[in-house]
């Protein structure tokens, strides 16, 4: 029992010692800042905010989630349990959940073949996604009807000339 008790304590102690050594950029960084300064932020804890796009790709106990801040989408590697909180991923029909990710940034991740990515430690949902309502665009509908009329006219003219 004693061993079980000591191990978590040791981990906690090591984490507390190691934590201040990894600078944390509390202000949310943009994707452009991260891409332009890969060496400066490499291996450091960063905060990045954006919309989940595409879909959550589960890989065993982890998942890849691509998050777009409006300029670029960055790959975020997170635990599958964290990814389960995501309800909407952005596509034509949906606006994706807005997430704030705090994690370690890699300019060229050794674990993931040199990808530029973030390994998430904390994931916070800032906003829920939603279904984007689609109404038929009346201007487009009218234009297509006018063009259809023009096509019919050409067809009739063709018949007339043939005769």
């Amino acid at each position, binding site marked *: 029992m004693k061993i079980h008790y000591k191990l978590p304590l040791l981990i906690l102690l090591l984490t507390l010692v190691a934590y201040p050594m990894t600078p944390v950029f509390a202000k949310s960084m943009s994707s*452009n800042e991260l*891409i*332009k300064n*890969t060496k400066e932020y490499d291996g450091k804890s960063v905060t990045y905010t954006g919309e989940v*796009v*595409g*879909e*959550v*790709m*589960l*890989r065993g106990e982890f*998942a*890849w989630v*691509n998050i*777009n801040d409006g300029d*670029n*989408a960055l*790959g975020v590697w997170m635990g599958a349990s964290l990814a389960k909180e995501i309800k909407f991923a*952005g*596509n*034509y*029909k949906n606006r994706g959940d807005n997430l704030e990710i705090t994690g370690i940034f890699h*300019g*060229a*991740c*050794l674990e*993931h*073949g*040199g*990808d*530029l*990515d973030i390994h998430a430690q904390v994931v916070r949902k800032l906003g829920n996604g939603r279904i984007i309502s*689609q109404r*038929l*665009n009346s201007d*487009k*509908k009218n*234009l*297509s009807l006018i*063009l*259809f009329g*023009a*096509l019919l006219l*050409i*067809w009739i*003219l*063709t018949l007339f*000339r043939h005769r």
Partner: protein
Amino acid sequence: MILKPRLEDLKIIGFYLGKIILGLAFTMVIPILTGLFCKEFNPALDFIIGIEISVFIGLLLLKVCRTDKDLNWMQGMIVVSLSWVVAMFLGAVPLYLSGHWNSFLDACFDAMSGFATTGLVLVQDLDHLSYTHNLWRHLIMFLGGQGIVVIALSLFVRGFSGAFKMYVGEARDEKIMPNVIHTSRFIWTVSIVFLILGTLALGITGVLNGMKPFNSFFHGACIFMTAFDTGGFSPQSQSILYYHSLAYEVITIIIMVLGALNFKLHYHLWTGNRKEIFKNIETSALFITIIATFSIVAVGLAQIGSYPSVATLFRKGFYQLISGHTGTGFQTIYPQQFILNWNHLALVGVILAMALGGAVCSTTGAIKMLRIGIIFKAFKEDLKRIIMPERALIIEKFHHIKEVFLEDKMVRSALIITLAYIILYVLGALVGMFYGHPFLNALFESTSAAANVGLSCGITNIAMPAGLKVTYIIQMWAGRLEFMSVFTILGFLIATIKGK
């Protein structure tokens, strides 16, 4: 004396242009069906408008220019070069109507990039684009890779001697079969068989990577179309980086290389002549230039130390290199990283690879391997002439499907096209520099556009000046058609103005 084109010339050009426009309109049925299937009604409407405009113009041309006469060489070439410009305008209509392109010029840029299998993009908010529009973006690459005229030849033309003139005008000067219509159909058969196999491979990989089945197979089909046709569009804004998958990268490399091979070589492989792949001058040249250019990239990347291990350096360096060499343009790094994380040496390696391209009669752009091989053989022959006694009879030959004796006219033709490409790369770079970009960045983007590659170092974006957008459109067009059709249309315009 320059002769002014006659009304008859214009009528013949207009008539065949009308046929090709109808062929293009027919292809828009595919995104309409996709839109209805996916319940994306507004995007489907965009294509209904697009098809109506195309059919209207096509029918009008057929009626006004009705003729029974066949095409001559000049007319055939002009029909081809105009077809690509008209396809750009008509293909851009549904794109622009989607609201994802800031201007019609931007939509035209992406349409030309698609048809010419380049892959440079100005689309906005790609991650929210409909399946319907996404399918169209990838489909136009597939169609453009085979050749817009090849589509018309395969589907709508029953056979006439002018067919070969249009086929040649589209930078395909090799007949795989005696009949050009059969050649077109063979190209389609190969492409469709690979489409099924490639989509299955990528779709299954996607599912294993955690993607939902429908999305996975849709992405698989799209990625296959743009990989095999060495185009480079992708359904998501991150290109291939979106998938975070080594398997996906390996499969796309195989497809890109298949797309960069000569269709004539495909024919021989299909008919059991597997030795041809080892003997052919193009595959040998491709193998050697891949090794040479990758060596440059690898040394450059090792110097700068951007990647933490040899494996990551290889994975990133080799993927961008193959993507550039085959003229595809898929990326697994962000465009800005070329400038920020790669040094000049590595960039030069990629620029050289892009400038060289794949095989002739494939879907790649650029100078191409047969010409590189011929120029190399000519150098070898000249060196022998210097070394050997004057009386010695020096004969150089190479293997391209059969043993071919090197002739001066082959060397001349190869050198002219090579020179034309180099001038096009440099002219585009000069325009880029005029707009304030450093030389190497400007040369990178210009070569990518003119060689129909699609790799970007970040110059191509919506804020790019209109002049640069138009420059790249012209480069993509001229590069795809390998100049001859473009020279003909310039000659035609001069004759119209100055002719008597």
